[in-house]
């Protein structure tokens, strides 16, 4: 297992290198330049050109790319923001807790609400409960997130005054953004849980379990759910990965200083170091989460674990067991 994890961690290096090259290239070809952005609207072209030279933006593509890769991968330095005089890393680390908080709460909501909904729907397939759960789920994936967010603000913050409409602070500040953000996640979780539960419920081993005399509850939680978990975990992992970078809109509605906003406004400002650093960081985080998901797979499904551990080891194991 450890060998597998180390191997996967090593694989991350070329992936991150690739991300760096891709995003650098996209930003390189982006029209507009940070020099103009820094100097503001009324800057003359001559002043902009001078600033470009000072910032090294006039150097050729390859030189800048290699310089950047050298800086990031050999000196572990994501650089300094053009605008904030602050290292990109500390900028990211500062904002990470907010984004992470939202992602974690959303993930919990997604698991705690979406999974039971999906199970209920699957158990009562085609019944009323199924219909209700699926209508909720379909609505969830169909409603634009920011629309829901603003409706929630109008209701809970403005009309009822129960919750703060924006900003960061205590836990209560995270309630509305998380609900708005988690709705789609809950919905897709419920759908995925339902369909994988349906598939599992029809499996032979569920019949075997039933033939043993186990109660439906035991069958559901001891036999069906563990088997249905793999696709469910995939959805959770993907959702988590997406939420880390994809909460831009929610962050914007609720004025939350998260990584999404940080990176998006940097794209608008052409603050290259921040864009590249942010995307790289999120990419690394995403890769780590995917690794975690795969490790959880192995924990949940011994077949996958055996696959990771490779032929040789499992052969040894069998030999030991037999002998």
């Amino acid at each position: 297992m450890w060998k597998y994890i180390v191997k996967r961690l090593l694989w991350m290096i070329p992936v991150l290198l690739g991300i760096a090259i891709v995003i650098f290239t996209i930003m390189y070809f982006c029209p507009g330049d940070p020099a103009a952005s820094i100097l503001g609207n009324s800057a003359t072209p001559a002043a902009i050109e001078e600033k470009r030279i000072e910032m090294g933006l006039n150097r050729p593509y390859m030189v800048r790319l290699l310089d950047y890769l050298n800086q990031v991968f050999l000196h572990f330095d994501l650089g300094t923001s053009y605008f904030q005089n602050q290292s990109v890393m500390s900028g990211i680390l500062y904002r990470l807790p907010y984004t992470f908080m939202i992602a974690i709460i959303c993930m919990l909501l997604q698991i705690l609400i979406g999974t039971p909904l999906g199970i209920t729907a699957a158990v009562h397939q085609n019944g009323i409960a199924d219909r209700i759960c699926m209508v909720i789920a379909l609505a969830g994936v169909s409603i634009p997130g920011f629309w829901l967010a603003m409706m929630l603000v109008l209701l809970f913050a403005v009309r009822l005054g129960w919750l703060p409409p924006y900003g960061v602070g205590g836990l209560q500040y995270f309630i509305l953004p998380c609900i708005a953000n988690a709705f789609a996640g809950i919905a897709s979780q419920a759908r995925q849980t339902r369909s994988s539960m349906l598939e599992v419920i029809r499996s032979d081993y569920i019949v075997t379990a039933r033939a043993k005399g186990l109660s439906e509850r035991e069958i559901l939680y001891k036999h069906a759910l563990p088997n249905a978990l793999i696709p469910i975990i995939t959805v959770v992992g993907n959702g988590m990965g997406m939420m880390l970078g994809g909460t831009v809109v929610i962050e914007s509605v609720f004025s939350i200083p998260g990584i999404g906003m940080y990176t998006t406004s940097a794209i608008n400002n052409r603050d290259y170091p921040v864009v590249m650093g942010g995307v790289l960081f999120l990419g690394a985080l995403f890769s780590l989460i995917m690794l975690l998901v795969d490790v959880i797979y192995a924990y949940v499904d011994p077949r996958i674990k055996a696959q990771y551990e490779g032929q040789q080891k499992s052969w040894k194991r069998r030999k030991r067991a037999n002998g």
Partner: protein
Amino acid sequence: MGKSEVPFIEVKNLKVHYTSEGRKIHAVNQVSFSLQKGETLGLVGETGAGKTTIAKSILRILPEPPARIEDGEIFLEGTDLLKLAEDEMRKIRGRKIAMIFQDPMTALNPVMRVGKQIAEGIALHEKVSAREAEEKAKKMLEMVGIPGSRYRDYPHQFSGGMKQRVVIAMALSCSPDLLLADEPTTALDVTIQAQVLDIIKNLQKEFKTSMIMITHDLGIVAEVCDNVAVIYAGQVVEYGSREEIFDNPLHPYTIGLFGSLPDINSDVERLSPIMGMPPDPANLPGGCAFSPRCPYADETCKNTDVKLDAIDGTHSCRCLHWRRTAQMKAETS
């Protein structure tokens, strides 16, 4: 076909259908049979004839919907299983009646240790501690020829034959009174088939378990069964003791089954398969269900509802013309 005393298990007029895409599929039609303690009954027939449905009806583990038991009674030592409450039924499953499934590859939960899967039933029915259940499960494993040290292994670490042994150990773990064996060897390699069958036979003797053996393999029937019920299109078309069926098959379908069995004594005679295809269970032909494929069928066969006719002893047959068949047989021999 009953003896004087109450049979150990008795199935009466069982009728089951499935609903699929709006069509009603008649899987089991008025099936009746009974079984004495310690005996083995073979249910023989083609795939889709309704054998498995009968077995699952006895355990009441049919998926409902789409399946529905329309009518009938199933008595286990005098109590109608179909009328029991679900939690009463649960006490019977695994403890009094256990089942061995056709495909060992899918019958085991892939993410649960095999020992645990056996111990689970033991702990449930025998009210013993987890530790004791584990001990017993290990004993069961060893009984089917798997070292107890493999208790903590997962199904994917076993071969097909080994898995089926686990399934058998699981089924027998609570010493059930009735074992439903649903084609226990079909999915296995030929060499393993015999081993597994031996295990079942030996254990059955040891535990004095009654058994319903579902199979399409007449060889197995000859080897393990006391009585045989031939099933066609959800009906029992012929019933009798092993000897009666093997020595004197009277239903054209049964005869056909034997005809398609290669005769190792004569290398001249070719296989004579049953012509045609099994009927569409959603749209059964009127009269005798076998009539479209029957070489001896006439117009009356297609119009008359055929009853199961007692012949002698336990032997009975669902054919209008069994007498003619018997006569023909007598003449040829």
